[in-house]
């Protein structure tokens, strides 16, 4: 076992600032939706818009980072080992089995993580992003668009995507506690280093 840098500095910055922004966006978003009252509508809209812009900028940097470092390959889905991982989470974790996946810095996400994160990145986030921008700029829609689309549908899609985001986060946070110890998967996301079966780079 060697101590390997698995989550680089930008990746950790991206992950945690994205987490913070998503929490802010969920909180203010559901207030705008009318689910509860705290900041007041105007303030919630202001914070929501600001956080959305910050997240968009962060995503642009993250996309650049993924492309230039080749880290995007970490998210290529694979069926190989997928069912073993599923079986582990549904059965093995209770019977004391070992996690079937061997993490390396080149392939740091197990097949289920790959699928989940890919879904997050290619479906949930783009839907939120696109519907959110349409929502924000609905007054500037070109006539052809406003003839096809109603604000109501944009709002419904945005809300549905927000629910999907909330579900993702609940599952993601819970599964982050499923390492050898409660925090063994979270610590590397903070320090960047994890003990892995691979030679030091």
């Amino acid at each position, binding site marked *: 076992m060697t101590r390997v840098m698995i989550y680089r500095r930008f990746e950790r910055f991206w992950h945690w600032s994205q987490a913070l922004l998503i929490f802010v966006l969920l909180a203010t978003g559901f207030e*705008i*939706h*009318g*689910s509860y009252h705290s900041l*007041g*509508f*105007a303030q919630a*809209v202001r914070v929501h*818009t600001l956080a959305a812009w910050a997240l968009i900028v962060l995503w642009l940097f993250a996309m650049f980072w993924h492309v230039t470092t080749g880290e995007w390959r970490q998210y290529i889905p694979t069926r190989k080992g997928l069912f073993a991982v599923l079986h582990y989470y549904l059965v093995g*974790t*209770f*019977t*004391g089995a*070992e996690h079937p996946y061997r993490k390396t810095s080149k392939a740091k996400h197990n097949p289920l993580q790959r699928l989940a994160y890919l879904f997050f990145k290619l479906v949930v986030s783009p839907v939120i992003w696109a519907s959110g921008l349409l929502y924000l700029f*609905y*007054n500037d829609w070109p006539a052809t668009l406003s003839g096809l689309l*109603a*604000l*109501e549908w944009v*709002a*419904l899609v945005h*809300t*549905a995507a*927000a*629910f999907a985001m*909330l*579900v993702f986060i*609940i*599952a993601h946070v*819970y599964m982050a*506690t*499923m390492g050898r110890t409660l925090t063994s998967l979270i610590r590397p996301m903070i320090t960047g280093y994890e003990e892995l079966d691979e030679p030091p780079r």
Partner: protein
Amino acid sequence: MTTGPVRGERGGLGRVAGVILLLSALVSVAQGADRPPPTADHRKFEALKGPFRDATEVTRACLGCHTEAAEQIRKTTHWTWTYAHPETGQVLGKRHVINSFCGMAISNEARCTSCHVGYGWTDMKQPPPSSDSAVDCLVCHDTTGDYWKFPTLAGFPTDVPREWPSGSGKIVEPPDLARIAGHVGASGRANCGACHFYGGGGDGVKHGDLDSSLVNPPRTLDVHMSPEGLDFQCSDCHTTWGHRVAGSRYQVNAKDTLGIDVPGHTDFSRASCESCHGSTPHDRQKLDDHVDTLACQTCHVPAFARGGVATKMWWDWSTAGRLDADGNPITEYDAHGHVRYLSTKGDFRYEEQVVPEYAWFDGTVEYTLVDQPLDLSQVPIDINRVDGGPEDPGSRIWPFKVMRGKQPYDTEFKTLLVTHVFGADDSALWSNFDWPRALAAGSAMSGVPFSGHFGFVETRMYWPIAHMVAPKEQALDCQSCHGAQSRLAGLGGIYMPGFHHSAWLDRLGWLVVLLTLLGVGAHGVARLLLKGRKRP
């Protein structure tokens, strides 16, 4: 080489002139004198020194210089009380419409025409008197505040001491016409207000956003008209063109897309907020995004009747005529001291700080005229209807006072009826408390048919709200509409985040969230319970 000193002198003079200009500018700012001084002192005109036998002689004197004024006035709605609506083709105006207050002006002339800009219109079946001297210059141009068209004299001020209100013991002296004639000037709030604040028979009764509190309003009541603020007169927005005043309640400019009115580029009318504020007046883009859908007044007039004067919201004529045991008329007051019942007029409800009702409005108002058959399956009867809707790009959501009440109609002909309420005769309702006679007299005087069978039907009438614009810090906040208790609830064609949502999407969404929480909860508990079986 003589230019040097000359230049120097000029420079010195210029500086002195500059300092004088600057000082005078400072003085004028300090005095708040933001209007140009008049070019004439009317006290110096021989023709205006009097004495005048009556008000028509003052008019003759005015017309000696202002030669075109009478002809101009006679072309305006203020004179004709007739408005041919360009969109609907309906003939409207006070001479023709019926309202949900006292009904029609016709048959009640001397009382109602006390607000005509002329003298002696005693029979509305005829047009107003045609002589030049029948035009009333003073009601709009008196600056002393002493000129008052006596309420029962068909537009004339009184020429002898008279009691008003009748039975009150208060005596109104005839105005000093010579003094008033020497003090004429541009119309101020009190001039317009003398009629427009008192419509419907009393202060604030009719409009809700126009009452005597606007003569000298605090900034919180009207940010434009307050002397603490801009001290606008009515005519600063209701600009005139040859005595024709801009801004109509029958054909409102519901969405002014011309933007800021620049002389030479647009019209000279400033009777819309956009005329000065443009179409993007806010410092936040999201607020400007609302301009296409909401009239400015919708957010910036948070409530009407805010100045301490109550407005009438309900008027039930059906109860009028009840007398006490001795056969005398009754007056009852509500807890706030507002009249609640009068034998002459029936039951009322006065309200202050009234939250408007909201409707899509393209500016066109259609009337149920007195000869139109009523659809009694649709009660309340709309005395007027505001056109417009969400699909129409010329419409916006406007605030309205909705006046409700009950008024007489012909149960056989199914039409509204004219009530002869006022007059020193044996048929006026206010003198005799006899409905059949008052309605028969109203019919005879107006020519509107009456079968002799009548009842009372509930009606409602829409009054657009455009005045009492509050300072911006009092404008509605987002939650007023974007919340569960939305002011715009029930209006079609809009999606308001915070108010609108899809119940099924919310149920489904929260169900999935709940199931996820239960799933991870159960998974976690199972992990804890089965921990012992885990290999180290």
